[in-house]
């Protein structure tokens, strides 16, 4: 099953994982959008990596939708020549997502950045530290509750890291 | 002819002593002795003056020439064509705040660069820049000069160790390894010259070359080895690892600023000057020129300087066109390539002697 075409892959994904996976209509720029339940994420990722030839984890990011936090994975396949988008939803207070660093080493810093910027904890991540903001900074700037501040206010904020 | 400056100094000193002698009772006994020493002093002071001015002009020469190699102009706004730029740099460093880093060991921190500069300048006293025109014309001048020359890694290491900075430390370690590795081929290539001349006196060596042709021709291999080893000894690209800008911020002089930094800088250039001097003296015929060009008064010193600048221009040329080698490659080149080649060079020189290369013993000064 190493060289699945896309037409076969997504149904295979759906049939294997059942209701935990939802394939959304694809957009122009990505091959497909797959919604995954949090607890099956690692399995789906493993499946896509091993059988779906998605060997390159291009991007891990997140969006704060206020009522929930969406974590996005963009995977590239050299065989299919396209990106697959995986989305995972998690609760905004104390969000947890399993880490995929065991599958793609390259996801390491992306997950660190998502933790830094959005406060999503990646369980099983080997080294979940802040990467862009200084260690000990208290906020997660890309949360919608964190506003861009006036500089004067900001200084106070930044100094109380 | 070439003795002119020394004779003039001697004459002047004798004259002066003759005038002053009667004022000091009982000075007649020391007169000739004093005259010789004083005239050496005068000549020595002149040598230092010429050499240190040379150092300043060297830096300018490097800046301008390097600029030309790089399609730009180099310093040009201070003084005519930027000639005063180095003076400005030196004066500026002179008035910078003296300091030592909190973690540094003060004694070593101040001692290192100072001793480095002093020991480098001291060598200048033994190098004749024209016949008899040296601070101290000892029969073993070459040996003394090379011995003093090899002192530098010690002081560099003291300086780097006591600055208590990791970059400095690595730079100092590299310096020690590098200078020791290249000292040996350097000395061995000198051995060939000494074998041909039979003397350690630089005046004799130059005189021999004046009579029998420059050693650059029979000992071309020796010249190449000496040149490369000298590049490493004066820490210039491609062997400038101790101050490799890209990885060690400024190498062993990272923590130095102000006057001490000026010392390290000046020491480097003094050593570059000495390196050029030695190449000219040992292989390029010193102040002698073919076709009797050096027989005019003062022409010897002028030719000597011209040759020195030409040699330094090659240093700069190398700097402009070669990348830096790595530590292990540097040591490999030193121990595995240069050392055997230097041995070959010695054998070649000995063969020349056996075959009857004219060995002339000039009367010592």
């Amino acid at each position: 099953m190493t060289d699945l075409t896309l037409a076969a892959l997504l149904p295979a994904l759906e049939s294997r994982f059942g209701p935990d996976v939802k394939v959304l209509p694809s957009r122009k720029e990505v091959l497909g959008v797959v919604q995954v339940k949090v607890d099956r994420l690692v399995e789906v990722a493993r499946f896509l990596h091993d059988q779906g030839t998605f060997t390159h984890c291009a991007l891990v990011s997140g969006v704060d939708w206020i009522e929930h936090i969406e974590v996005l994975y963009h995977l590239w396949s050299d065989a299919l020549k396209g990106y697959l988008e995986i989305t995972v939803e998690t609760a905004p207070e104390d969000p947890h997502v399993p880490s995929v660093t065991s599958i793609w080493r390259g996801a390491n810093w992306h997950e660190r950045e998502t933790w830094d910027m959005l406060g999503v904890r990646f369980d099983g991540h080997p080294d979940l530290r802040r990467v862009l903001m200084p260690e000990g900074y208290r906020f997660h700037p890309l949360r919608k509750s964190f506003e861009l501040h006036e500089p004067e206010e900001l200084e106070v904020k930044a100094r109380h890291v | 002819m070439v003795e002119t400056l020394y004779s003039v100094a001697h004459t002047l000193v004798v004259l002066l002593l003759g005038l002053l002698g009667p004022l000091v009772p009982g000075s007649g006994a020391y007169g000739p002795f004093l005259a010789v020493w004083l005239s050496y002093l005068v000549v020595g002071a002149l040598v230092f003056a010429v050499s240190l001015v040379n150092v300043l002009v060297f830096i300018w020469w490097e800046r301008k020439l390097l600029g030309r190699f790089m399609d730009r102009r180099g310093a040009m706004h201070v003084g005519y064509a930027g000639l005063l730029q180095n003076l400005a740099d030196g004066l500026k460093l002179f008035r910078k705040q003296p300091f030592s880093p909190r973690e540094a060991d003060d004694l070593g921190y101040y001692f290192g660069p100072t001793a480095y500069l002093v020991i480098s300048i001291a060598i200048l006293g033994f190098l004749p820049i024209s016949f008899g025109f040296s601070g101290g014309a000892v029969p073993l001048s070459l040996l003394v000069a090379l011995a003093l020359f090899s002192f530098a890694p010690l002081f560099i290491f003291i300086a780097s160790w006591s600055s208590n900075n990791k970059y400095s430390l690595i730079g100092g370690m590299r310096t020690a390894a590098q200078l020791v590795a290249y000292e040996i081929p350097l000395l061995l290539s000198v051995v060939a010259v000494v074998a041909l001349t039979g003397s350690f006196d630089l005046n004799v060596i130059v005189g021999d070359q004046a009579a029998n042709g420059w050693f650059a021709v029979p000992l071309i291999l020796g010249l190449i080895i000496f040149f490369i080893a000298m590049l490493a000894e004066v820490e210039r690209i491609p062997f400038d690892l101790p101050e490799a800008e890209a990885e060690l911020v400024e190498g062993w002089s990272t923590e130095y600023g102000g006057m001490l930094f000026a010392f390290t800088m000046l020491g480097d250039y003094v050593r570059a000057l000495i390196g050029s001097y030695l190449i000219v003296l040992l292989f390029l015929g010193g102040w002698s020129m073919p076709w009797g060009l050096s027989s005019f008064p003062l022409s010897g010193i002028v030719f000597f300087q011209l040759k020195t600048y030409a040699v330094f221009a090659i240093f700069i040329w190398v700097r402009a066109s070669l990348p830096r080698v790595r530590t292990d490659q540097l040591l490999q080149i030193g121990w595995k390539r240069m050392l055997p080649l230097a041995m070959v060079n010695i054998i070649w020189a000995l063969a020349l002697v056996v075959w009857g290369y004219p060995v002339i013993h000039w009367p010592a000064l």
Partner: protein
Amino acid sequence: MNATNTSGTARIITHVKETDPMEPEVPFAEVEAVQSKEYIPVIKETLTGMIQRGLDAATKPVFNWAGRNSLFPLHWGLACCAIEFAAGFGARWDGERFGVVPRSSPRQCDLLIVNGTVTWKLSHKLITLWEQMPEPKWAIAMGNCATGGGPFRTAYSVVPGVNKLIPVDVYIAGCPPRPEAMLDGILRLERLIRERRA
């Protein structure tokens, strides 16, 4: 003018000085010195002072000339302006014409050109670098970010102007300033040093 004697009158003088600071100092000291027959140190000091002032007057222009003509900036790159900073030392502009040679170690620098956005994360390091530079030293804020935060002024991580951290002598506008502008800033600093305003 403090007379360094240990006689009783000196203490009175000191007392007077303390109680009446408006009183001119020199005549008292002289009178005191003459009274206590210790005018030699006073004359010595006066002479030393004169010599010092004379030396200062004689050497200050020289050192001022030296200092302003050999400004070594710190060779570091923060952001966009750093590229223009590098271009300013390329073949076309050649900042070395003015004796401006970037050095990598702050110990050997006179001039800190802040060429880019300074973040709060960097602020400690910037201050360390500034403090590592020996006096006399100058700072140039190059570009809008260093001057006032630039387009990132409102951001949560950006220092809105580097003058909140270190004293800045010359501000160069532009985003990024062209290399000419940078060199002009350095020359402006030279002018300021010549007029002893920086």
